[in-house]
């Protein structure tokens, strides 16, 4: 019911919402590197995805 009350953008007015620059991350490769390589290079324990996939060493 909460979400239904938010239905305020008709389909014909959704043109801009699907534009790449309106997405949380517009570049999948950049997002991949941000999630995996960046936290290790920054040296952070809580800044990235936090899962496995490589030792970062």
């Amino acid at each position: 019911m909460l979400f239904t009350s938010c239905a305020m953008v008709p389909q014909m007015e959704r043109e801009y919402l699907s534009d790449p620059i309106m997405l949380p991350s517009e570049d999948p490769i950049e997002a991949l590197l941000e999630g995996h390589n960046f936290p290790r290079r920054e040296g952070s324990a809580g800044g990235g995805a936090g899962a496995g996939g490589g030792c970062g060493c």
Partner: protein
Amino acid sequence: MEPVLEVDVVVKLLSIICILGILTTPFASDGESSLELSYEYFLDKNQVICYAPILALTLSINEFWSVSFDQEIDAVTGASRYAGYNEFNQTSPDASSGATHQLSPLDGLTGATKPEVRYAETISISRADQGRVVGASFYMSHEDDYTSYAPSVNISWDFNERNTTVAGGYSHFFDHYLSRPNFPPGGKKNIHSANASLTQSLSPLTIISLSGNYIDSRGFLGHPYRPVILDSGAIVDEKVPDQKTGIALSANIIQGYHLFDDYLGSINVHYRNYQDNWGMLSHTIDTKWYQYITEESYIRLRYRYYQQGSHDFIYATYSEEDKYRSADIRYYPFSSNLFGLKFSFAFPDSWQEASFLVPSRWRYKIDYLFRSTKENTDLYQDFNDRLWHTAIDRAIGVGDYYSQVDMLIGVQYDF
């Protein structure tokens, strides 16, 4: 310095690209398939360099199904072996035999010394129908001392006239630190990662999103290459708990606008809070400003601030009685500031019609990161007058700072 990417690796990568190009020809019909070739170049204050060529292929099989393949080769000039030295070709004694080695430059943050390459591949398949997407993927990576395999599933559901999207996913990582001569044995670790998100359109130019990520890690969670110096002067292995649970909560708002001859622009503000049962608490604020400068080309400015505390078992010194001990830079408090600039330009259709070698789009990104640890100097291990003082002092930036530059250039072919 020995080359990080050997000739045979480059040849293999080029071969993959050629083969994929041939294989993709039958799919070049519906305009939904793409091939992206990117190259990341990273350089830090301590002259550590990373190269990462990346290939990402997405093939649309029909109106519902698509498959994708990603290949990443991540090469670093200094991977962790011998912490404590910071000079190229510096001679060091072997920990066990007393023999000497010729070492490479250190990684700025990890105290790394050995060139290493990580090969990572991901294959995915997904089905999309009327805003409902189901997908599965399999990730695998290999280093000479580490392997990882991770199956994943994800689902996304649009409803409320597609103004609301609920999504979720689960991944299980099977990772393994392989045992290396003269170092502590590694071990296996299992990581369960589950995520969920809710995205809501509020207006034709406004989107908000809330998401959560639960991560449970078990097994060997430490690092075999980062020994600890006790207050007695003894050098001992790192010891950390064998279970960690972390939760990350994020909020994201994207506000679009029109400016400059009606070209679309947007402001993207993202906040992330992470905490785990080892006592870590971190905050991330990531802001991005996008602006189209032509119909299909845009620029992006970015500022990101990150701040973290420390794990509960992190102290300036350790004794034999301490249950847990670590000198891992990632567990200590710090803050960082990132400034970024990105261009994403579309090539004119006439250029693409002139030659199939002309891509649809090219991208270039450069990020500069400044990492400060000065305010937390007293929390670092006391390496004064110890064997590794100079290197660690330099590596973690005590009384100083650490910085890095990260560049990414790529081209995208749509077919």
